[in-house]
């Protein structure tokens, strides 16, 4: 492998990182909405939200990607490769993030909420100033795990035509008929990205740690 090809692999790793980041961010927003629906007292909201989580956690991402890419045009929505990959990755991670957040909200202790009520906080205030900050802190480790999961899952998005790290390795393996060095290099780059994300996550955790007085 030449330095030139290596530089192109690093560039492709940048694409992988960017797409994963965008997917995680969109997924977090959708995840919060789905989590809210799951925790809602209304069956009309809870039912579809549960179905959503069950479906996106029940179908392999590879199949979801193909489904979004090829099925959406059948109902008149034709999206580009990158959009299809982002939609599939975001919707999939949102299901996992919603479950994580739900776990976080359910772990906020009743005592704290009662205390907040006792000092006269409104329902929305309690939610915004007690539940949300605590739930988010509690779910940061899970969010970091999920981010790494999506980073790895993005290795599949070339099936809908996005050229990222894995596909670049595949292209070069095809041109040279020598797969080992390219897949090994891709593996090392993924390893670097993974532990980079993990390090950032740990730092965020420390920064936001619930301090005990």
């Amino acid at each position: 492998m030449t330095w030139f090809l290596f530089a192109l692999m690093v560039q492709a790793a940048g694409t992988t990182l960017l797409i994963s980041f965008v997917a995680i961010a969109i997924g977090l927003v959708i995840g919060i909405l789905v989590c809210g629906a799951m925790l809602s007292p209304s069956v009309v909201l809870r039912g579809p939200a549960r179905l959503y989580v069950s479906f996106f956690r029940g179908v392999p991402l590879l199949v979801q990607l193909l489904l979004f890419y090829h099925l959406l045009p059948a109902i008149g929505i034709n999206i580009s490769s990158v959009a299809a990959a982002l939609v599939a990755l975001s919707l999939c991670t949102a299901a996992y993030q919603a479950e994580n957040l739900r776990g976080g909200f359910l772990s906020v202790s009743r005592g704290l909420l009662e205390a907040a009520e006792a000092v006269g906080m409104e329902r929305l205030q309690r939610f915004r100033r007690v539940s949300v900050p605590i739930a988010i802190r509690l779910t940061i480790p899970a969010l970091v795990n999920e981010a790494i999961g999506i980073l790895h899952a993005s290795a599949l998005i070339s099936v809908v035509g996005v050229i990222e790290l894995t596909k670049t390795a595949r292209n070069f393996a095809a041109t040279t008929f020598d797969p080992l060095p390219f897949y090994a290099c891709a593996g090392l780059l993924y390893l670097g990205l993974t532990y980079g994300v993990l390090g950032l996550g740990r730092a965020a955790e420390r920064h936001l740690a619930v301090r005990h007085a």
Partner: protein
Amino acid sequence: MTFDPSVVIPYLPAMGRGALVTIGLWLAGLLASILLGLAIAVGRLVGGKAINLALGTLVQVIRGTPFLIQLFLLYFGGPRIGLTLDELPAGLMALSLFGACYMSEVFRTGLRAIPRSHIEAAESVGMSRWQILRRITIPEMLVLVLPAGTNIAVGLIKETAVLSIISVPELTAVTSEIGSETYAFVEALTTLSLCYWALVEICSRAGRLLEQRLASFRFAA
């Protein structure tokens, strides 16, 4: 574009065979993951520093890279270092190693959560170290980690779909072939999604049922 699910019907037997391959791969991969995962977890616990470091690095590398890359390295890169495997054994091996590394981490957490007092009690009745491991620590740990273990097991079902990329004749590969033969991609993909969804739901529910059944064996942690 029309949507006509009936085109898939003549191919259901073929899909059934693909589903059997998927389930077979999953069960074999899961069993290997649990055994190998246990070996890694226990090895790291009782082995020396060097063994712990070596196994720890393996686990970090596997958990730090996508399954697809591991699969490509083994299947396409393997021959370069003299490891030439057919797609099915290569797929199974990659799946098992992947599952084992995730399982081993769950097992380690579980092993650490077992109270010292249980082990001391076993020691006081004269059990050997191996006996304690086999009859106290591991069974208690397995009950403890059942929810996390079920998650990994269910994740492995979905990971088997990736094996279609190296042409293992499992459900996804069979179905995309049907799609290209009949040009009914959308119908085939929809059926495929429903198959996996059902499989995953059944397994998650089975896991939860098992959890409830074994709840009485769970010590109050």
